């Protein structure tokens, strides 16, 4: 194909393209109907006629409403699953603790549960205070709950006499 012939074809294609731009703009905008539609004589009448016909006659199909809603639901599910990792991680999010004033009952504690206070696991964040309380409690318990025999042994130790000397 010669260069001039090829260029001629491209120019013709360009003119057709411009014509289609105006034609489709008119088709999609009713207010433009009746407006100027590129009356370039260099455009083949057959191309012009078939373009008009295709623009008018080729329908755009729409799927059924049932399909549309079913797919919308599926997309919503996919979208929800995409959002889930963000919600589950929640890194860096500060969770406010409810303020508990001295003397007020522990709101998290079930009724009739007064006796097992020390047995409850402690939340992270109260660990330091809990440790101190636990040591003090253990010391008191050791002091109070030792048997008479144990107290005798301890007294003997304090006197510095192995075997007692009593």
């Amino acid at each position, binding site marked *: 194909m010669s260069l001039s012939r090829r260029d001629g*074809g*491209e120019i*013709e*294609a*360009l003119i*057709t*393209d411009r014509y*289609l*731009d105006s034609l*489709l703009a008119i*088709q*999609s905008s009713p207010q433009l109907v009746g407006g100027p539609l590129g009356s370039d004589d260099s455009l*083949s*009448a*057959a*191309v*012009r*006629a*078939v*373009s*008009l*016909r*295709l*623009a*008018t*006659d*080729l*329908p*755009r*199909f*729409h*799927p059924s409403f049932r*399909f*549309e809603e079913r*797919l*919308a639901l*599926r*997309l*919503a599910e*996919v*979208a*929800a699953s*995409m*959002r889930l990792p963000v919600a589950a991680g929640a890194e860096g999010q500060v969770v406010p603790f409810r303020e508990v004033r001295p003397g007020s009952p522990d709101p998290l504690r079930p009724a009739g549960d007064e006796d097992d206070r020390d047995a409850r696991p402690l939340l992270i964040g109260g660990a330091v205070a809990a440790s101190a309380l636990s040591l003090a409690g253990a010391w008191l318990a050791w002091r109070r709950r030792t048997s008479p025999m144990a107290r005798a042994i301890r007294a003997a130790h304090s006197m510095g006499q192995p075997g007692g000397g009593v």
Partner: protein
Amino acid sequence: MWRSGAAKDAVPRIAHLDRDRPLVEAAQRDPARFDALYRRYLARVYSYAYYELGDHHAAEDATEATFVSALTNLHRFEERARPADGEGASTFRVWLFQIARNEVAGERRRARRRPVQPIGETVVVDPLDIEAEAVRRDEARAAWQALGRLPGERRQAMVLRFVDELSTAEIAGVLGRSEGAVRVLIHRALKSVARDMGVSKRSGDGRGSAS
């Protein structure tokens, strides 16, 4: 208003605006907002798939796969609009139809592997037989049949141009061709359809002796 000279050069050019940009950005922030894009493009993607596959169920499958793929990969989408793409062009739309084109090709391959009924060699099955209640005009049937006899890329370019109303630049993006190549593709397709439909060179109304 633009000023001339250096002042004009100092002002940055207004970037080309993708008409879908606000919806795309909203959906990228929150996938639940993808619904707006889905509703906007459902009929277009479905039509493209329907014209290409000629089967209602196959078109639905391709449409579903297209939108699910678009949603799950939306975070990868980057707008690459150029001023040359024209006013109102959408790179999202190009991206979406690229996905649709791949899904339609996949659907076609699957149909070949498990043909339910003989498939025409290059002729797309006429969906107007199914949609006869909706589209009764013989002209539409003739136009459809003429389009269906075109070879693959010409037919795709014609459907994208006339049914989905994409610009030449957008079609070039979808097909992976240059704009000039798409213009020639469409021009030749029109001449071919005109011959096929019996639209004569002297025809004024385009209502030639259609088959």
